[in-house]
């Protein structure tokens, strides 16, 4: 006589998911002074804006999972966003078998286990994509925020370099700056 039996399997798993995104670019800094002097000006300007110098010479400013890294020697800027999350997922599945025609319990249990594992992987993958999308969204938003600051830094370094160059060329008699137009006029006696 055929007897049906049912098994229920439940799998749960907790994973630590990480996602990240970053973009790199190079600041367009004119070579008004020798590269090492331009690097010093850039370093000082960035330090004034909350960047911290690292042992490798780069300057980093962190804001939660966001970080901005500048190499003052090359002008390379890297803006990165990261996201981490501990995600728990649970999956449950029922299966029915028959004692005479099979499948036998062991084989059925293995098959269901595999299916549960695949389902969990799929769910974690979906979570990973969500996390990635969140990191990318944060990066894009941060880029929009940081753009004006980058322009300001470049302009400030250029202005400082011009002033320094003028001092090297002669005696500066007058410096006037127009904040609105960005015009800088330096008069000097050679």
């Amino acid at each position, binding site marked *: 006589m055929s007897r049906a039996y049912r098994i229920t399997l439940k799998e749960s798993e907790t994973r630590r998911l990480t996602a990240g*995104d*970053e*973009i790199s*670019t190079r600041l*367009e800094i004119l070579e008004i002074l020798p590269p090492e002097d331009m690097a010093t000006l850039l370093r000082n300007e960035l330090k004034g804006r909350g960047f911290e110098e690292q042992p490798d010479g780069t300057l980093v400013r962190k804001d939660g999972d966001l970080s901005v890294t500048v190499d003052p020697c090359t002008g390379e*800027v890297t*803006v990165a966003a990261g996201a981490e999350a501990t995600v728990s997922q649970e999956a449950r599945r029922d299966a029915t078998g028959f004692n005479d025609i099979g499948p036998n319990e062991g084989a059925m249990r293995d098959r269901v286990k595999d299916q549960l594992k695949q389902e969990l992987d799929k769910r974690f993958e979906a979570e990973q*994509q969500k996390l*990635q*999308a969140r990191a*990318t*969204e944060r*990066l*894009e938003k941060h*880029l*929009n925020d*940081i*753009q004006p600051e*980058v*322009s300001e830094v470049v302009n400030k370094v250029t202005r400082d370099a011009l002033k320094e160059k003028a001092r090297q060329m002669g005696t500066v008699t007058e410096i006037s700056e127009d904040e609105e137009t960005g015009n800088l006029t330096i008069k000097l006696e050679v």
Partner: protein
Amino acid sequence: MTRPAGPPTPAPDGPKAVSRFEYNLVCVLRFLLGHFPADRGLQLVRAAAARPPCLSATAADLVKDSLAKACVLFLVRAGGWRDERFLRDRQPAGGRAWDRWPSDERALSFSGHVVEFLLWATAERVHETGASWDAPPAELTAADELFFWLAFDACRADGDLVAVLRRKAAFRQNRLLWLTAPAELTDDEEPAPPDFALWCAGTRAVVLECLQPVLTARWLRSERAKGQVGDWRRMRHQGRAEAATLAAFLDAAHAAGRTDLARFVLQTNSVLFRTDLAPDFWTEGLAAGGSPGRLADRLDARRAALAVPRQMDTLSNWQAAARGVGYFDDDYAASQLWKQTWEAADGDAVAARAAAAVAAIDPLRSGQPVAGSGQQADPTPAG
């Protein structure tokens, strides 16, 4: 008495007699050289025929004749006929190709590898044959490489044939193929183009001189087609292959003192940047729906798309160096020629427009908001 021997009997008029296989082989050759209908030529390449132990003298003559005439005709039509100036021994030489170079320096000589290839292509179903044929790239002459480039081009319409041919070293290492279709020769993430030094001297350089208009036209066509590319990975792959190839070629040309051979890169940019161009010209086809999740990947593909405008950086450096060459310097004449080419192409304006287009891709330099879809608003590049 015997009658004196008369004049030799002239050869009978009419077509020369060859076997069926030889006839097919000559047809395949003419197809590969662009002098035979493509549909029939492709049929012959895809068909098999019993290979004879060797070719008859008549067939060999026909092969020689076709190769010699068709390749020279192609080069002349491609650009050899133009009265232009190129460098010869670091001095500008003007005139048509045959005026600039003595015949011994521009003579095309074909090796046996071409005939072996023709025998293989005629005897085998190229798209599914197990019979191996290949030619070591180091043994190929300039004329061989030109022929294999033309052959690949002729077969391009047939994807099966291209898939087979691109695996052969004779094609995979073909510098002309790299210069015209680099993305077709590599599947790698980091393409490694061959060294172009050989192509910046001797007969190969003469071939490159003749091919300048063809190279310009090919690159222009490729650049204009990029706006239709919707696959981000394909765009990145193509752009990376192009950037690596052009960088390798420009390095080789500069090292050999043959900056004039890179004229096609300048000309391509010059035609593209007659007016300001936004990056959308290259990237508008990239589908927002299939875009990579990471901004880094999207940016990578968009940057790769502008591989050709990026080369203007290198050319601008050449121009800056040429401006610094004095009258008594060794390279004065060469630098003058480069400056003339640069000015004729409106190089300064083109370089500025290209730099603006490249900068507009960059989220931190464009001054434009970073859109979530990876598409950016049009910049206003400096003219």
